[in-house]
């Protein structure tokens, strides 16, 4: 009760500040509720504690990556303030320490990742649509089978797939990685997207059907726009898995500098005979910059997409 009054004031001033004069939308009312909720000290405290807990290990890594090698192993990163010695050596070693330019690995990672995200999502969307909206015999059994395939560990597929790629003369090319990642992503992608897909009100689809639209038209005109947030959220995860993958790239493309992604380079950094904190920390940080940027971009996108209220019936 006590928190409610100031929070309403807050919403008002906020709305004015954003120039949204006029009616106070439902949106803002809900924002008001949220603020009232967070205004309670213990809930905000809990949120802050969780955020800190989740951030500390990464933050420690970030600080570590700027510390000289001997410091890293003799004192904790939290002593940084007492002894603020920094170096860029670790980053120099990661970026320029190899015979191959770092940018080459970076380009390879990008070239690998984009098709390996676009292709499985498109395929999975079609499949998820079929499972949700097309009636055919054996639909449920097939869906369960696809779903259960999630559990096949990638490792058991390496030898059969590589054998096939070698026979096709594709081994060591981007095609093998694109194809493999696409296949491996499908079960989970179909499972997730199907779930979003069947939440879409039946009335929308049926209205379109009455108008004489075929499945393809319904898929592109009616469903796809509604699924933007779901697609965006799955895209970010698929992006991360491909970007962080080492095994698939190593097996199918080999470590040749023409195709090897960033992860191969970072794995090499660990050295022939053991882990070295100083370069590993820098390498890990460089590798996670791109996924973070992508997340920030996509997050904005899918949150806004949902707030637009298009899904609500």
């Amino acid at each position, binding site marked *: 009760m006590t928190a409610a009054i100031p929070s309403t004031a807050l919403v008002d001033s906020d709305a004015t500040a954003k120039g949204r004069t006029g009616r106070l939308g439902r949106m803002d009312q809900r924002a008001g509720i949220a603020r009232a*909720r967070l205004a309670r000290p213990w809930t905000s405290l809990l949120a802050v504690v969780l955020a800190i807990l989740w951030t500390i290990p990464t933050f420690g890594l970030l600080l570590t990556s700027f510390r000289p090698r001997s410091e890293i192993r003799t004192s904790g990163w939290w002593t940084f303030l007492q002894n603020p010695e920094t170096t860029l050596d670790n980053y120099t070693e990661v970026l320029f320490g190899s015979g191959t330019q770092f940018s080459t690995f970076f380009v390879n990672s990008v070239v690998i990742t984009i098709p390996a995200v676009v292709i499985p999502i498109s395929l999975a969307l079609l499949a998820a649509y079929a499972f949700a909206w097309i009636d055919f015999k054996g639909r449920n059994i097939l869906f369960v089978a696809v779903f259960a395939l*999630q559990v096949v560990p990638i490792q058991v597929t390496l030898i059969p797939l590589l054998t096939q790629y070698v026979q096709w003369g594709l081994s060591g090319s981007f095609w093998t990685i694109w194809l493999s990642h696409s296949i491996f992503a499908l079960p989970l992608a179909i499972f997730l997207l199907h779930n979003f897909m069947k939440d879409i009100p039946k009335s929308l689809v049926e209205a379109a059907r009455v108008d004489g639209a075929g499945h393809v038209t319904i898929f592109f005109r009616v469903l796809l726009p509604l699924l933007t947030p779901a697609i965006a959220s799955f895209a970010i995860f698929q992006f991360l898995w491909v970007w962080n993958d080492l095994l698939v790239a190593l097996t199918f493309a080999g470590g040749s500098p023409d195709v090897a992604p960033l992860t191969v380079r970072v794995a090499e950094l660990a050295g022939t005979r053991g882990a070295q904190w100083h370069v590993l920390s820098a390498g890990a940080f460089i590798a996670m910059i791109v996924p973070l940027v992508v997340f920030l971009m996509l997050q904005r996108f899918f949150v806004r997409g949902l707030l637009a209220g298009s899904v609500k019936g």
Partner: protein
Amino acid sequence: MDWLINAGSTGHKFVLMFVAIMLFVVVMGAILLAVDRPKRVPGWVVAAAFLGPTVIGLGFGLVYPGLRTVWGSLLDSKGKDYVGLENYVRVFSEDQFQTVLRNTLMWVILVPLLATLIGLVYAVLVDRTRFEYLAKTLIFLPMAISMVGAGIIWKFVYEFRPDQPGVNQIGILNQLLVWLGLPPQQFLLSEPANTLFLIAVMIWIQTGFAMTVLSAAIKAIPDDIVEAARLDGLHGTKMFRFITVPSIRPALVVVVTTIAMGTLKVFDIVRTMTGGNFGTSVVANEFYVQSFRIRDLGLGAALAVILFVLVIPLVIYNVRQLRIAEEIR
């Protein structure tokens, strides 16, 4: 042909990438155009067009290797002679395997539940607050790190140094203990707590996934429902229990299932942090060790098949959920 396979320069690589995507779009577009006749095309033809590429890909890339593995689990260590169920007998008669199985169960129960719970609570807490973007990004951060990278980070967190003059703690957790006046611990050594410390790493990673998906689901709860509940006087935890959770039930099931599936397969964390020693091994790690390091192909395949079997309860549960959802619709 060679031009399509080997790309040396940056420009060439990007062109190739573009070609690949265009090729895909053109082929799929052609298939879809062919079936999109408003005049009745038989349902199975449309389904085949939508599902065909997926089914072929999965058959080639997952089903066939999976079946080969099942067959391989009945062969000897070189993958040559048929030995029946010998590999399974070996797996279940070895003492250490009891530990491995127990650990796997701990992982597959604790990780999905805790990651989902924390992700859900957090998503609700920061929903529509001013710092939502920042708050979500912080929790999401671990998702951006590879499993191996996460293993390395946490090894650093758990790092142990003795309480001895001239020696500083370099792991934050032990430093906290020392600050509290407690002796530092070797977190990764003592059974069975060490498995919990490894599980914490997986929860740390997966919470971001749970939070992202659940947050999207929460935002999709129709406003009228929320408003009506609020008019009925529902607030705080009651709103959470009676409105939020039931509304996003399907998403919860998806998240728990997905994380559970992912957890069953995870071996990098165990491999990086303890190498499966000190009684921390899980089935996925044993599978990797047997198949790729010790090269006992039969035993490795048998362990993979056990992974397949472990997923059956999850499949059944999801089939049930599917049925319920169908009925509602």
